[in-house]
C-alpha cells in the first residue's frame, strides 16, 4: 500500500472517499451547531425520551470500537498468528470509532461548551464519571499498543501492551453497559446482565465492522482474502452473533418471568409498533437469523459475498437492537405507582412516542463520517493492509487451530 504503487484511479478514489467522508462529517458538525444554537427543542428528544438517535449512534460506535480491538487481542494475547497481521488495522478502527462515538455524545450535550467542566469535575459514584477515565485511558493504551506493533524495536512489548489493552477494553465495555445497568428507575435496565451483554455485543459488532473494512480494503487492492482465513473469521462472527442472541433471549425471558416486567415485555415483543417490528424484523430476523444462515448454510457459507452480507446485516441488527433498547425503554412509562392506573400532563401511564429530527440523524451520521474519514486516511498513510503469509501460516499450523 505504498503511495507509489497506487494507480491514478486508486488515487482519485481515495480522494473521493476522503471528500465524501469529510462532507458527511461537516454536515454532522453543522447539525450539532444548529442544535447547540437553537436548543434541543429542534430535536425529537424531550423530558421523557431524554436520549435519542445521537445516543443510538454513539453507543453503537463506542461498543463496536472496543469490540473491533478484539481482532488485535486474539493475535497478541492469545497468540493466533492469523490475527497478528490484522492488529494495526484493528487498533486504528478502535481509535477512530471510539473518537467518533465520543464526539457525538459531547456534541449532543446541552452545554457542549462545558466539556472542560466534565474533565475537571469528577464524581466517582457516576458511571459516566468513570467513563471519562476509561475513554482517554483506552486512547492512551491502544496508542501505546499500536506503537509496540509498528515499531520494530518495541515489538517485544506488544504482548503485555496487548494484554493491557484487552483488559482495558473489557473494563470500558463494562462501563458502557453499566451506564444502563446501574439505572434503578427504568424497567428495561437495572440489570447486572447488561455489562456482559454489552461485552459480547461488542465482540460481534466489532468483528462485523472489521470484516467489512477488511473486505473493502482487499477489493480496493485487487486482493482476495484466503478462503480459509475468511472461513475462520466468519465462524468466529457466527459464534459471537449466536452468543448475543443467547444473552438477548435470557434477558427477555428473565423479564417475562417477573410479573412487574411483563407489561414492558408485552410492549417490546408484541404491542410496541415500530419497536416490535425493529426487534423481530430488524434484530432477530435480519440481524441474527439471516446472518447465521448466510454464515453456516453450505449453499452460502463459502462465498465472499455471503460473509460480507452477513457482516453488514449484523450491523443492521445492532442498530435495531440499540434503538429498541435505548428508545423503547424510555417511551415506556415509568412505574411510579405500581398497580395503579395513572394519568398526568407529563405522559405518566402512557406510551410516549419519539420521532428523531433531521439534525439528530445528521449528527449520528456525522459520527460515522468521522470514523470513516479517519480510517480512510489512516490506512492510506500507514501500512495497515493485512498481509497474510499463507505458506507460513499453513506450515505453522495456524490455519487449522
Amino acid at each position, binding site marked *: 500500500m505504498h503511495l507509489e504503487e497506487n494507480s491514478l484511479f486508486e488515487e482519485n478514489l481515495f480522494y473521493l472517499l476522503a471528500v465524501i467522508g469529510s462532507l458527511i462529517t461537516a454536515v454532522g458538525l453543522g447539525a450539532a451547531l444548529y442544535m447547540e444554537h437553537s436548543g434541543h*427543542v429542534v430535536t425529537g428528544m424531550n423530558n421523557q425520551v431524554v436520549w435519542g438517535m445521537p445516543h443510538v449512534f454513539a453507543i453503537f460506535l463506542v461498543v463496536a470500537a472496543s469490540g473491533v480491538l478484539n481482532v488485535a487481542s486474539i493475535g497478541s494475547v492469545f497468540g493466533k498468528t492469523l490475527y497478528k497481521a490484522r492488529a494495526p488495522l484493528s487498533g486504528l478502527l478502535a481509535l477512530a470509532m471510539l473518537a467518533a462515538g465520543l464526539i457525538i455524545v459531547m456534541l449532543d450535550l446541552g452545554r457542549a461548551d462545558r466539556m472542560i467542566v466534565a474533565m475537571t469535575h469528577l464524581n466517582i459514584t*457516576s458511571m459516566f464519571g468513570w467513563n471519562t477515565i476509561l475513554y482517554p485511558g483506552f486512547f492512551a493504551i491502544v496508542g501505546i499498543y499500536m506503537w509496540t506493533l509498528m515499531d520494530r524495536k518495541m515489538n517485544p512489548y506488544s504482548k503485555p501492551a496487548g494484554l493491557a489493552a484487552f483488559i482495558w477494553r473489557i473494563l470500558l465495555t463494562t462501563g458502557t453497559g453499566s451506564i444502563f445497568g446501574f439505572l434503578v428507575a*427504568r424497567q428495561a435496565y437495572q440489570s447486572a446482565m447488561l455489562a456482559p451483554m454489552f461485552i459480547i455485543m461488542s465482540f460481534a459488532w466489532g468483528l462485523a465492522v472489521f470484516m467489512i473494512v477488511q473486505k473493502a480494503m482487499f477489493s480496493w487492492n485487487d486482493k482476495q482474502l484466503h478462503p480459509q482465513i475468511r472461513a475462520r473469521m466468519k465462524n468466529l462472527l457466527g459464534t459471537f452473533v449466536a452468543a448475543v442472541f443467547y444473552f438477548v433471549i435470557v434477558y427477555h425471558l428473565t423479564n417475562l418471568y417477573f410479573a412487574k416486567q411483563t407489561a414492558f415485555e408485552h410492549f417490546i415483543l408484541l404491542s410496541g409498533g415500530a419497536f416490535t417490528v425493529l426487534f423481530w424484523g430488524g434484530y432477530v430476523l435480519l440481524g441474527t437469523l439471516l446472518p447465521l444462515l448466510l454464515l453456516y448454510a453450505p449453499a452460502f457459507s463459502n462465498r465472499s459475498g455471503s460473509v460480507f452480507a452477513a457482516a453488514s446485516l449484523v450491523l443492521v441488527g445492532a442498530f435495531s437492537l440499540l434503538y429498541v433498547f435505548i428508545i423503547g425503554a424510555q417511551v415506556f412509562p415509568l412505574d411510579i405507582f405500581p398497580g395503579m392506573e395513572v394519568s398526568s400532563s407529563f405522559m405518566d401511564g402512557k406510551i410516549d412516542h419519539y420521532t428523531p429530527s433531521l439534525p439528530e440523524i445528521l449528527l449520528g451520521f456525522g459520527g460515522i463520517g468521522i470514523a470513516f474519514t479517519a480510517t480512510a486516511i489512516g490506512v492510506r498513510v500507514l501500512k495497515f493492509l493485512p498481509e497474510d503469509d499463507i505458506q507460513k501460516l499453513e506450515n505453522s499450523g495456524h490455519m487449522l487451530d
Partner: protein
Amino acid sequence: MSAPQNRINNPSRRNFIAATAVGAASLGAVALAPGLHLIEVSQASAPSAGASSKVRWGMLIDTTKCASGCDECVQACNTENGINETVQDARQGSQWIRKIDLKDPQSGRQHSLPMMCQHCEKPPCVDVCPTGASMKRADGIVLVDRHICIGCRYCMMACPYKARSFVHQPLTEQNPQVPRGMGCVESCTFCVQRVDRGLKPACVEACPEGAMTFGDLNDPNSDIARRLANEASTQVRADLKLGLGVRYQGI
C-alpha cells in the same frame, strides 16, 4: 530650602491645599459610598451560615384533600420560579411539579396528588451525575449547580419519579433569584430561595385545601414531624429505599 517653606507657610495656599484635600476626600467618600452600601446590603441579605445538617426539610402531602383538576400548586411553582416559556410540545417544557391522577383498577378508588422532586436522602441523580452538578445540600434539599451541569441528562434517566426537566430552548424574563438556562437540567428546589428566608415553598402556600405541609423532619416539635409520628404516611416507590423527603397520605 526657604522658598518652599515660605510657600507652604503662606496662609492662603495652606487653606487651598486643605480645602482641596477635604474636597477630594469628600468626593472619594461619595464615590465609595454606594459600593459600601451595596456590600452592606449583600451582607445583610446573605445567609449567616450555610445549610445545616441539623435540619432535614421535608413535605407531607395529604392526597385525601387534593382535588383532581386543581393545579394551584403547579401555577404557584411556575410563577415563583419563572417557568413561563411557551413550548409547542408539552413534553419539552419544564414541569417542576405536576399533578398525577391515580385510580385503583380493582376498587375504582381515585385520588390526585402533586409529584415533584422527592428530595431523596440517597438521590440516584446525585449518584449518576458525572460532574457533581446534581448535589444534596446539608439540609436535604437536592439541587442542580447550573454552573457545572453539562446537560448530559443522565440524572433524568436515573430519577425514578421523572421529576427533572431539561431546558430545551432559550429562556427570557427569568426570576433573578431562580437562575435557569438552556441546556441545563432543573427540578423542584423546595423553593430554596424562600426557605432560606424562613418562608414556605410557593406550592405549599398556594394549596387552597392546605393539603401540603412543609417543615423540618428533624425537629420533633415541628408540625410535620408530629404528624408523621402519629399518622400513617407513604414514600412513593419505598421499595427503592431512597429515603424520601416527601411523604404522602391516602395512597
